């Protein structure tokens, strides 16, 4: 049975192909259109998924969309009615897009994909929940989802057991932890739905001195729920996420730019602390309702790695699993798996051990591309790739690493990565200034061998060793190791860790292992292979072009080693324009 899952029309469109319960392929649309956070119907991602599965559209049993458009439309109209007459501008703008396209999802899918069969509609948070539970390693688990908003719900709790999934409780719009965090993201001068992780990075530079003020906006209730004071927030009646009382409370907003002022860092630290407390409350409630030791999470707020780490340490759950594409792009996986398991009653056979579900390119294809472009390169024997590249990194070279199938989700996990030496104190500044062209306060993440993780990092887990294969947990860098890892130890002594096992990625594992032999530290700096504003590279041409536009020292694609002297710009600077604007928030 072939099921195509789709999520789109808000932010981060994605598609996946589920065959007999196994995830064959999944990818975000932005990787193909090169528009970061592209929300359009994912025709390119869907086409890739069908190609990867050797499936024609007429061989699909079902296509399922990740939410119910008419329920969402009802909420939007109700919201604007409830805030009448302040909502006129937002109403007119929203109705133009809804009446023009968003209401006609079934027709768009059929036309866009050339598909004549059954188009089904999941429910937004049910899709998130299913994307978290069914690919997880757990037979039973509590499920927690939190994001901006779906149809009506912004937060849900439920229980998954084998092929059954039931959400029992929800918090509804306009109360939304995700929209509150986005409001602070906009206030702090970052793009909504893009800059939330920058707020997390900024938080480490501040002290949570503004927590009392943040608590005026969100009241945490003893039963784990929360309530927002909408007087401070603008999204219920307009396109701005904050209102004048917000500015009166916190002062003028931060202008976009690389500068970092203490006042804003303190505000970032404060919203981060309150978000963690809110997520802890939700997780404790989920544990009380389910009695399970396992927690699965999805939704955009589940990408808050600091909150995830506190949940692991303090909520009482022994194991926490967050799927790699926890945001809206991953909703397609949940819609498809919910249909396959809970509705059609098929058994679970698949576990998402890796995120390598995107396009891959053979050595021959890479070689052909390089030869066509006249690029000079050296071919490495398979067994020489890891030792050779490890030596380059140990010598403080920055290496573009393009291997195997592309990752699904926002994190580069050793398939489309830029790698560097974590023991060199200058690495962070080099990467920020010369390659990524981004704010100096943002940290870089480490990849390490799963067996070495506990030597260097303390996750604070109640059951000891923890795997973090999707880089969705932070850990404290052990105090006696911080001096060894200056490039990845953030100001607060934490790091967003990826653990790598040999089974998950043999070549990347071998590379880290070889680097460990050379330096005594089996840890690499791993940042996504892109420049600021650009989606992560997908093809060899995109990788080579980004390499050519930056100060990377080497590019390793498959078994081809390309030196900096071979750089040649194939196109314009790849930093793409963001598809959403500033502080506007679409609910």
């Amino acid at each position, binding site marked *: 049975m072939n099921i195509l899952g789709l999520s789109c029309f808000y932010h981060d469109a994605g598609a996946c192909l589920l065959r007999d319960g196994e995830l064959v392929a999944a990818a975000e649309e932005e990787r193909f259109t090169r528009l970061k956070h592209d929300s359009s119907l994912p025709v390119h991602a869907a086409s890739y998924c069908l190609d990867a599965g050797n499936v024609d559209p007429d061989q699909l049993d079902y296509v399922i969309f990740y939410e119910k458009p008419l329920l969402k439309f009802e909420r939007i109209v109700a919201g604007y009615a409830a805030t*009448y007459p302040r909502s006129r501008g937002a109403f007119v703008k929203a109705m133009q897009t809804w009446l023009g396209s968003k209401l006609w*999802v079934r027709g768009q899918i059929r036309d866009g994909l050339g598909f004549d069969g059954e188009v089904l509609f999941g429910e937004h948070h049910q899709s998130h929940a299913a994307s978290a539970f069914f690919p997880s390693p757990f037979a039973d688990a509590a499920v927690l989802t939190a994001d901006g908003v779906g149809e009506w719900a912004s937060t849900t709790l439920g229980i998954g057991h084998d092929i059954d999934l039931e959400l029992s409780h929800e918090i509804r719009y306009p109360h939304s932890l995700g929209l509150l965090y986005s409001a602070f993201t906009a206030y702090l001068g970052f793009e909504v739905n893009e800059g939330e992780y920058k707020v997390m990075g900024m938080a480490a530079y501040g002290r949570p001195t503004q927590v009392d003020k943040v608590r005026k906006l969100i009241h945490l209730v003893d039963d784990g729920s929360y309530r927002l004071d909408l007087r401070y927030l603008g999204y219920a009646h307009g396109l701005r996420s904050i209102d004048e009382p917000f500015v009166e409370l916190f002062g003028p907003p931060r202008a976009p730019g690389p500068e970092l002022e203490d006042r804003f860092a303190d505000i970032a630290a404060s919203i981060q602390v309150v978000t963690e407390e809110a997520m802890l409350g939700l997780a404790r409630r989920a544990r009380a309702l389910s009695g399970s030791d396992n927690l699965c999470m999805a939704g955009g707020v589940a990408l808050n790695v600091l909150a995830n780490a506190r949940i692991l340490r303090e909520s009482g759950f022994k194991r926490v699993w967050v799927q790699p594409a926890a945001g809206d792009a991953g909703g397609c996986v949940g819609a498809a798996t919910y249909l396959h398991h*809970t509705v059609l009653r098929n058994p679970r056979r698949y576990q998402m051990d890796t995120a390598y579900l995107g396009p891959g390119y053979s050595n021959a294809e890479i070689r052909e591309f390089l030869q066509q472009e006249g690029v000079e390169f050296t071919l490495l024997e398979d067994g020489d790739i890891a030792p050779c590249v490890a030596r380059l990194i140990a010598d403080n070279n920055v290496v573009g690493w393009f291997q195997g199938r592309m990752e699904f989700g926002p994190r580069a996990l050793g398939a489309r990565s830029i790698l560097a030496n974590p023991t060199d104190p200058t690495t962070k500044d080099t990467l920020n200034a010369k390659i990524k062209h981004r704010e100096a306060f943002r940290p870089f993440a480490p990849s390490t061998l799963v067996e070495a993780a506990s030597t260097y990092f303390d996750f604070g887990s109640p059951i000891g060793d923890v795997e973090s294969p999707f880089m969705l947990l932070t850990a404290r860098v052990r105090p006696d190791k911080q001096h060894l890892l200056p490039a990845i130890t953030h100001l607060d002594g934490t790091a967003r860790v990826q653990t790598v096992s040999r089974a998950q990625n043999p070549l990347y594992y071998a590379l880290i292992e070889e680097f460990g032999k050379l330096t005594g530290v089996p840890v690499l700096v791993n940042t996504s292979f892109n420049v600021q504003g650009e989606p992560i590279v997908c093809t060899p041409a995109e990788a080579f072009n980004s390499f050519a536009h930056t100060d990377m020292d080497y590019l390793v694609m498959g078994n081809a080693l390309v030196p900096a002297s071979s750089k040649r710009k194939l196109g314009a600077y790849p930093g793409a324009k963001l598809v959403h604007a500033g502080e506007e928030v679409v609910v």
Partner: protein
Amino acid sequence: MAVSSSATVQGWIGDVWTAYAHRAATYQTRVLLTIAYVVVLGPATFIGRLFGARLLDLSGTASASTWIERPASDKTVAGLRRQF
């Protein structure tokens, strides 16, 4: 040459007309939606408020729970066919 110039002029006029028509349509849509907002949504909201309709939970006491118990979901293909 004359045919080519004529085709260029026609193409240019077509482009200008298309751009104008698009802007005019966008403007008309905004006007119509504004009228709908005032004439349809306004009175409906007013009547709803008269009868105590609470479309969004915009206020309430800070300590009150916001949890809502969800009914059991419809786990059928027919349920997934619905867009609501």
